[in-house]
């Protein structure tokens, strides 16, 4: 390992440190870029019985309901998300943070399994930091999203559920990528992910222009999420808005959709 050499340490096969327990040594010393799965276990078969159409009486219900959106425009990237988490028909929480702060210049959104999104994006944050240390330069949005896509592709078919948008600002300007647990990675100007995404697309597509002002763009994002929460039962709570600028991201606002409903009603 690089750090080991710089620090002048010498691990001759690790046998000194761990006194003969080679397997333990290997596990500890290897950079863990992946989940340690017990060797005898087949995750796909094991999880199938606990999925929606499985045999078990106890079913794992992923927190799928959500509306998240992001779009690029001339002043950067706007990210707008709701904050409801549902487990089947139960509203587990109205105050979930669905925007994950990877670093000052990278944000990720959460849709699908909450644990999957936070875990893998946190691991992505570690990888991005390592890239910065090794290359003395911030990682590009394209590279960061590719790292994430490749990481989750290794677990394809094992039940990961993640639909995220990686947003950032790099040398090429504002960047926006959609990455999901199938291994899909797409670049585009606007994306919306989640059960309420179709409703959000409706408002977003009708109001979108490249040359929106920051205030107009924020208002559009807020409106799109509000309309999705109105029609989709699995989205709601508050609308969180972030703006990715050249100097990094800023959290713009947090508004309860209940209040927004009456505010919009009064304006019309």
């Amino acid at each position: 390992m690089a750090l080991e050499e710089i620090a002048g340490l010498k691990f001759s096969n690790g046998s000194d440190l761990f006194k003969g327990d080679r397997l333990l040594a290997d596990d500890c010393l290897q950079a863990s870029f992946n989940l340690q799965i017990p060797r005898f276990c087949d995750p796909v078969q094991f999880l199938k019985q606990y999925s929606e159409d499985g045999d078990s009486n106890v079913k794992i219900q992923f927190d799928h309901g959500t509306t998240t959106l992001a779009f690029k425009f001339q002043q950067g990237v706007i990210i707008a998300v709701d904050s409801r988490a549902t487990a089947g028909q139960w509203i587990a929480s109205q105050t979930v943070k669905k925007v994950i702060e990877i670093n000052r210049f990278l944000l990720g959104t959460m849709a699908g399994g909450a644990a999957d999104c936070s875990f893998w994006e946190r691991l992505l944050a570690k990888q991005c930091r390592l890239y910065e240390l090794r290359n003395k330069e911030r990682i590009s949005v394209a590279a960061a999203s590719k790292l994430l896509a490749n990481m989750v592709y290794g677990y394809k078919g094992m039940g990961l559920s993640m639909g995220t948008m990686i947003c950032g600002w790099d040398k090429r300007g504002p960047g926006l990528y959609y990455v999901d647990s199938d291994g899909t990675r797409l670049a585009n100007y606007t994306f919306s992910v989640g059960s309420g995404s179709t409703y959000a697309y409706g408002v977003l597509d009708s109001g979108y222009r490249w040359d929106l002002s920051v205030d107009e763009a924020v208002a559009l994002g807020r409106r799109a999420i509000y309309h999705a929460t109105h029609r989709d039962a699995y989205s709601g709570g508050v609308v969180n808005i972030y703006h990715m600028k050249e100097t990094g991201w800023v959290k713009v606002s947090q508004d309860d959709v209940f209040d927004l409903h009456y505010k919009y009603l009064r304006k019309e």
Partner: protein
Amino acid sequence: MECLIGIRGKDFVLMAGDSVAGRSVVAMKKDHDKMYQLSNRLLMAACGEGGDTVQFAEYIAKNIQLYRMRNGYDLSTKAAASFTRRNLADYLRSSTPYFVNLLIGGYDDSDGADLYYMDYLGSMVKLPFGVHGYGSFFVLSVMDRYYKEDMTRDEALVLLQRCIDEIHERFIINLNSFKVKIVDKEGIHVMKDLRPTTKQPEETPGTQSMDIV
């Protein structure tokens, strides 16, 4: 819901793919390029499962480049297609099969222009024209009717436009833009995107507009 079309001409291969990247009912990206450059004169169009297409295409492309670096010359189209097919077939009965359907088009000095059609089960055949996806149900007969050996580039583009128009006419999914590339002796050329020809709306005989009072 994806459609890939390949047409072999006199000394070139014309390849086209629809440019919609969709997830369930949503079109997430409308200018998506499904063709991957394997080498200077080798082009692969891939459709199928989300992550598999990109991962498999990049894996094959990198290996083709590696061959070039090690040996100083490019693999022939036939060899590259066989290599690709072997990988598909080997992974088929593993725990991570690649669910991708491919068209590989290339030009070499010994064999000229060649088009290979491959499916996710690892079967491969050399064809004068090939189509993947639901579009094939509509387009293969058009090809059978109008394809000729040794077509020029313009003739091939006219045939491709006919195919796209037929897909637009009868296929229930809206595929209104196709990315087009040509592979020939000089390399890979990116052509303008093709769209279905817009027709003026006309009254079909036998219908009458009714004023509802």
